[in-house]
């Protein structure tokens, strides 16, 4: 007798999830076939995470039926979901930085009971790695790992718990281009071995590259349910997501750059692990110019941004309008008109448990009219926050909303609004659109270009080559802390940039 085909890994039928005042999911259906990669798309706030949280046991649907491997399930906690083989890989990692990979994977399990025979478990984890091709040294501490490696630990965590349905919440948002390729390879190898994957993403090209079918959510409603990937264009997908044709090209005005604002000379610096991250790097950025920094993640981009904004020690000189600010406190750079869009929105750029108002005044709470000599005029501060909320289209119930309750795009707008209102001479923007949805990316990019027209010198560090080509006037390519070459965007050759990103010095002339 032939065995019957395996039942669908997951079936979600007519799922309704209602929060007070919000209908997050409105009769959504989702079927995950055994061994497939199913993409789940949608803008921020479309209800993707809510739907997946229901599948992972974090929320209970208001109504609807969920089946896992053909069996009706009713989860009261994530534990129940894990018991049924559902594992979620979160976008924000839930790892203990001071513990090893193995310790993190074992955390919360019943086994081992009393003795931590770590070498034994290290080996178990190595075996698991061999099976799926997820390379990471089990004895390393989490803080020593790159973001991509940390993500692998998260995936291993769910696999170790016996998950055969993996929900990956925007796994590529935090990764560098070649790490994304590795991840996709891993995903394919996992499905070959019988795992089924729900892949949440914003990036259309990734979805077409790796997924078999897709479901698109828009404002809680599915606009496509289990549609085949074959023959779908990026434009069509974008239309399903946002309900209108997305203009991918942002208009950039022709303008002549002015005087030199930022002048870096022979900058060297170390990273957190004490390894040299910047190696005698020199750069110049002019008024009204966007200098893009391209490069594979971990080639000194973070350190470059931190050195300029005074958050990291360095050797060399950093002239801002002629004044050296190297090795001074961040306040010195701020005083000279340096705005900073940090890489880590939640960890550095904002205070999560403070209100939008309190987050918007972070850099001008001492200046009139918000600041008096000793005190803060909170009526003025609120008005300021309200006008920014209006002007930058920040979606939140009101300005008393805590920063941690904002979506990534809205939080980024709060940060950008705050930095722009300081009337900066120089703006250091690190990955300003990472992890944002199509609509938010567009508005953030427009804001950066408007700032360029205002005459601000902008250093734009991004791992999205497309973004750099759209926004920058010139692109400098970083490799191992050195500038491999600088090209004018107008006649840039993507292949040449790619070569420089992998360490080939630009041929002069």
């Amino acid at each position, binding site marked *: 007798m032939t065995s019957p085909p395996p039942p669908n890994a997951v079936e979600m039928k007519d799922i309704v999830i209602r*929060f*007070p*005042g919000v209908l997050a999911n409105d009769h959504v259906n989702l079927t995950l076939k055994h061994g497939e990669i199913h993409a789940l798309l949608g803008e921020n706030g479309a209800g993707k995470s809510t739907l997946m949280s229901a599948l992972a046991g*974090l929320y*209970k649907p208001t109504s609807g039926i969920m089946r896992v491997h053909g069996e*009706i399930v*009713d989860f*009261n906690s994530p534990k129940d979901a894990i018991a049924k083989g559902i594992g979620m890989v979160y976008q924000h990692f839930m790892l203990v930085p001071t513990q090893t990979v193995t310790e993190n994977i074992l955390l919360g399990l019943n086994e081992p009971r009393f003795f931590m025979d770590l070498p034994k478990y290290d080996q178990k984890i190595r075996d698991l790695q061999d099976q799926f091709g997820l390379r990471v040294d089990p004895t390393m501490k989490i803080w020593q790992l790159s973001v991509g490696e940390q993500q692998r630990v998260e995936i291993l965590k769910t696999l170790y718990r016996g998950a055969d349905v993996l929900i990956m919440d925007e796994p590529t948002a935090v990764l560098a281009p070649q790490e994304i390729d590795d991840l996709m390879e891993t995903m394919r190898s996992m499905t070959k071995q019988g795992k089924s994957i729900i892949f949440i993403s914003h990036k259309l090209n990734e979805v077409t590259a790796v997924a078999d079918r897709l479901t698109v959510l828009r404002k809680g409603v599915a606009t496509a349910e289990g549609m085949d990937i074959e023959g779908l264009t990026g434009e069509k997908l974008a239309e399903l997501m946002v309900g209108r044709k997305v203009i991918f090209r942002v208009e950039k005005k022709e303008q002549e750059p002015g005087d030199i604002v930022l002048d870096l000379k022979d900058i060297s610096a170390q990273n957190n692990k004490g390894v040299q991250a910047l190696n005698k790097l020199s750069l110049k950025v002019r008024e009204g110019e966007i200098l893009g920094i391209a490069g594979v993640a971990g080639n000194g981009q973070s350190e470059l941004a931190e050195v300029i*904004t005074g*958050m990291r020690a360095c050797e060399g000189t950093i002239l801002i309008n002629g004044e050296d600010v190297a090795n001074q*406190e*961040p*306040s010195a*750079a*701020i*005083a000279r008109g340096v705005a*900073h869009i*940090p890489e*880590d929105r939640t*960890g*550095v*750029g*904002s*205070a*999560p*448990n*403070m209100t939008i108002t*309190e987050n918007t*005044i*972070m*850099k001008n*709470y*001492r200046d009139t009219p918000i*600041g008096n000599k*000793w*005190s*803060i005029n*909170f009526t003025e501060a609120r008005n300021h926050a309200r006008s920014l909320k209006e002007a930058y289209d920040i979606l939140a119930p009101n300005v008393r*909303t*805590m920063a941690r*309750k904002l979506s990534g795009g809205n939080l980024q707008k709060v940060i950008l609004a705050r930095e722009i209102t300081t009337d900066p001479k120089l703006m250091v923007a690190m990955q300003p659109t990472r992890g944002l949805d199509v609509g938010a990316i567009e508005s953030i990019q427009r804001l950066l270009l408007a700032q360029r027209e205002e005459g601000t010198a902008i250093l734009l560090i991004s791992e999205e080559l497309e973004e750099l080509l759209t926004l920058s006037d010139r692109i400098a390519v970083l490799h191992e802390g050195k500038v491999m070459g600088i090209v004018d965007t107008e006649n840039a050759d993507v292949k040449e940039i790619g070569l420089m990103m992998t360490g080939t010095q630009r041929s002069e002339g």
Partner: protein
Amino acid sequence: MNLPYTVIFEKRTEDYPKWLPALTSLASVVIAFIISGIVLKFIGGDPIRVLKFFFNATFGSWAVFSDTMVKATPLILVGLACAVAFKMKLWNIGAEGQFYMGAFFSSLVVLVPMVNLETTPKFIVIALMVIMGMIGGAIWGFIPGFLKAKYQVNEIIITLMLNYVALYWNNFWIFDKWSDAGFQMTPQFEKVAWLPRLSDLAKEYRAFSGITLHLGVVFGIVAAIIIWWILERSHWGYEIKLIGDNPKAARYAGLNITKNLVLVMMLSGALAGLAGMSEISGVVHRLQERISPGYGFTGIIVAWLAKLNPFAVIIVSILFGALIIAGRQIQPSGIANLLQGIILFMVISSDVLLRYKIRIIRVEQEA
């Protein structure tokens, strides 16, 4: 066994209403009283009588209420000391030691003496004692603050250890140098160094006779107002909260974290030091052993129960003052401690209500 009902904890997705923390705190106190009542019943007491007695002994008349307030006074100041530090997530558990150093330093004014006690006007002596008390506490706050800022030493351990240093430093002086005829206390201070009491006015207003409430309570209330203003209105308070919530964001915003760390520890210490001054100048009128029955530690509880709100600190301190008074009169006196413990447990567990909604639902039968 399958129950027909199940209790589910739902994570709150929206902000809770502003009145909810006050309500849950109040409910915790009420529930704590009920649980203590049950315990009393078990050991053969009459909970209603004890409760009545408790109320009469603490709020029953102006005289006993004044006693309650006298006990509440150091708690207010120490509670504020902890609240300020905790706002910045600085775990100052050394208010007890800062209290003793405040008492010691303000005593110097009288015991050295620093001024001529016969000719100097009372308000100058008192003002000097206030300043010295605050300096003493601030020094005891500066040490852990500086060590943390400069060498990243854990402030919890240092503040805890400094409690003992302060205690025995005081003992050295009262057992040896300033001992009053071999007792472990200094001679009584001259009246000029006593904080004014309401009973001082008994000649003019008969109703005040025997009322021991002293000026220290005014210090407490004024301090609460100032701390509220600092935390909620000033640049500095904004910086304290920002550093407390996300030190990396604070550094990114250009704040000087090390400076604030030291300053906040000093402010915290100064408040606890002021409590020490108020206690010796307003109540015991001499430096002696055991001037604090653990005020510095109770202050930690007070600050938490008040959710770090300066005005709530006053209310919680009055409740705890009442518990101290009642504990002296209810036998066995452990009952008041029991109640204190249960209240703390209840309030801490009531936090769950702020983060989760609890619903009881009927279990549905699935086909």
